[in-house]
């Protein structure tokens, strides 16, 4: 009697739990199409905030030419998405292809354990080294660029500038004068959208060109725990600039209640004259406000030398091939196609890029006015990569700390010191030397 109950219980448990585990298995593999051609199905995991129209265009072309069908799986963006990615890697359930930030975030995934090393592949020769470094560990290169690079700096409303007779500033002081003139005209000088806290970081992160220009080894010293934001005057400037804009009262009203989308609307309609932001989101303005995109201009955050006015560049997200997937060969052929001339052409036919491509020999002929302005810095060699591509250390609380500085709750110096303490945990988590 007892044994029978045990048996029934065990069978019931097995029957109840099996479908749960089986549900995790994606349906990938090969199938024959009607006309006899073999179609290989791949899965591609991408966050739900990045533009994927370019990837979809390449995938559509690849299905015709390579017989590879790419199924797109969406996941949340931001730090919540990081947890999804890490969990799926840890449980061996990653999709065949993974779209993810390059730089410090990618390196935190231990790519050498999970992804295919592409360094020996001939198609990697045309990828710029500046990108490859952001997806490399040791000699291995673990991803291809999945988009264009983009800049971080200041959007400005060209109509407002024209009406007020303003010129693009080349020093921080000139920028502050412009802000004063804008305020005098009754227009919000700078849109602030601290409801989406990540947007509060651009003034500090986008100032890195000026840091890099004066102190090229800052990133290395920073990683080695020898230089910090609070005790390096040029690095502290970013925090001080944030405070100066607040102290002068130039941030728009109710910053904590204003969202990213609302701030984009403010600068597009001319309700605000400036918005410190990344060029990667320019398509959002076009999607929401149509032709007003042509009123948006862009300049890098200026420093003190008018002849050394450059822009901080962010590297594109990467597409990596999951090494333990079932279709590694097909996935590798897909990324090869992605960076081939045919792939890039398909990509650009669907996606308006927001910065320079990091693939050799690709010229952009059609770009937003703001992107064209940014490309003049690129063509003149006045660029520096953002700090997160030179150092694996990025503290998780930078955005909240900068909201505090932007609201005047703490001073620039206090904010910088707090951020220096914040990064200690990140450095230790990564097991870096000297921390």
């Amino acid at each position, binding site marked *: 009697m007892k044994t029978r109950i045990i048996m029934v*219980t065990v069978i*019931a*448990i097995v029957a109840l739990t099996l479908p749960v585990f089986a549900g995790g298995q994606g349906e990938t593999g090969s199938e024959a199409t009607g006309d006899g051609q073999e179609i290989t199905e791949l899965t591609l995991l991408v966050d739900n905030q990045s533009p994927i129209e370019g990837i979809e265009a390449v995938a559509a072309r690849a299905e015709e030419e390579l017989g590879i069908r790419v199924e797109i799986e969406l996941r949340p963006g931001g730090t919540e998405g990081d947890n999804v990615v890490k969990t799926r*890697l840890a449980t061996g359930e990653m999709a065949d292809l993974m779209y993810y930030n390059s730089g410090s975030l990618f390196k935190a995934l231990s790519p050498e*354990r999970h992804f295919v090393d592409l360094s020996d592949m001939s198609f990697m020769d045309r990828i710029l080294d500046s990108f490859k470094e952001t997806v490399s560990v040791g000699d291995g290169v673990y991803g291809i660029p999945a988009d264009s690079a983009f800049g971080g700096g200041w959007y400005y409303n060209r109509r407002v500038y024209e009406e007020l007779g303003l010129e693009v500033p080349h020093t921080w002081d000139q920028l502050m004068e412009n802000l004063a003139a804008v305020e005098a005209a009754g227009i919000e000088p700078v849109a602030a959208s601290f409801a989406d806290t990540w947007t509060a970081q651009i003034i500090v992160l986008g100032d890195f060109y000026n840091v890099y220009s004066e102190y090229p080894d800052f990133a290395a010293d920073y990683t080695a725990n020898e230089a910090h934001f609070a005790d390096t005057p040029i690095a502290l400037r970013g925090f001080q600039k944030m405070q100066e804009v607040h102290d002068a009262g130039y941030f728009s009203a109710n910053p904590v209640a204003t969202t990213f989308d609302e701030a984009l609307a403010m600068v597009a309609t001319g309700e605000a004259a400036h918005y410190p932001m990344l060029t990667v989101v320019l398509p959002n303005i076009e999607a929401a406000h149509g032709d007003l995109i042509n009123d948006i201009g862009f300049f890098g955050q200026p420093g003190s030398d008018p002849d050394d006015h450059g822009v901080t560049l962010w590297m594109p997200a990467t597409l990596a091939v999951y090494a333990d997937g079932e279709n590694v060969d097909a996935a590798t052929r897909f990324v090869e196609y992605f960076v081939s001339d045919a792939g890039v052409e398909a990509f650009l036919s669907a996606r308006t890029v927001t910065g320079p491509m990091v693939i050799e020999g690709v010229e952009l002929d059609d770009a937003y006015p703001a992107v064209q302005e940014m490309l003049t810095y690129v063509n003149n060699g006045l660029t520096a990569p953002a700090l997160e591509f030179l150092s694996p250390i990025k503290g998780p609380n930078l955005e909240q700390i900068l*909201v505090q500085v932007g609201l005047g709750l703490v001073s620039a110096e206090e904010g910088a010191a*707090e951020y220096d303490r914040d990064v200690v*945990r990140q450095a230790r*988590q990564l097991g870096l030397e000297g921390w």
Partner: protein
Amino acid sequence: MKKLLNNTYSYWFLVPAGLIYVTFFIAPTFMSFFFSLTRWTLFDWEFIGLENFIMFFQESSLKVGFRNTLFFATVTALSKVVLGFALGLVLTMGIRFTGFLRSIVFFPTILSIVAVGITFRRLMHPAHGAINRTLALFGISGPNWLGNVDIAMLSVSLVDVWRGVGIATVIFIAGMQAIPRDYYEAVSIDGGGFWRQVWHVTVPLSRPATNSVLLLAMIGGLRTFDLVWTMTGGGPGFSTDLIASIIYKQYQAGFYGLATAGNVILFFVVAAIAVPLFWFLNRKEVTL
């Protein structure tokens, strides 16, 4: 006793539920005690002793988090007791529309907390929110509910009371209806009016209900996360961070060992407050 149990149901009936409980509760709890002592990336771990606990206590926003958590739990628990008692009193007096009014009071409880948070974030918008617009009609310029660091925590507490007072009221109604009418009659025969009846009969005999409400609200307040997260995200800056939101942000940042240590600490904090409170309140009940 043993014979009785054997004759009725076998202990084996506990196995399915027990297995689920062990797999999804007991085992993870003990695993979390272990992982709180490691530096953990999900891919591998390294044993580092108590370093996570030391680092967690050095967290600059932790002091704010503790203060906010205690403030939030105390304010919401006490408000729910007082308001819940008052509403329970009104709704057991046999006034008109009692059923309708009870539904209204209970209604917010069945809403999703996230939906409540997002809705109130809009309602409390300093310029476009319905609350401040209504106040403006009377010539009052409303405060910046969630943007002013001095009152943001209070605003969130208010919303939590609005959302949670329904449960408290229901518990009080149940408790009050269980009080025999004889006691009230005895007081009124002695010449005691309404307030005397409330003070000398309803309040003391609602003690079990009061204790349940206080304990549930206190524990709920200490572990609150979703409402605060959807309304303020812990901001502006760190001004509405709770222990739970600090832990959540550490998970987001990928500090799995550190965040797990935070959860172990939260476990002990809740236990350290809830167990003595439970013991104290129950003892009072007995001495009645």
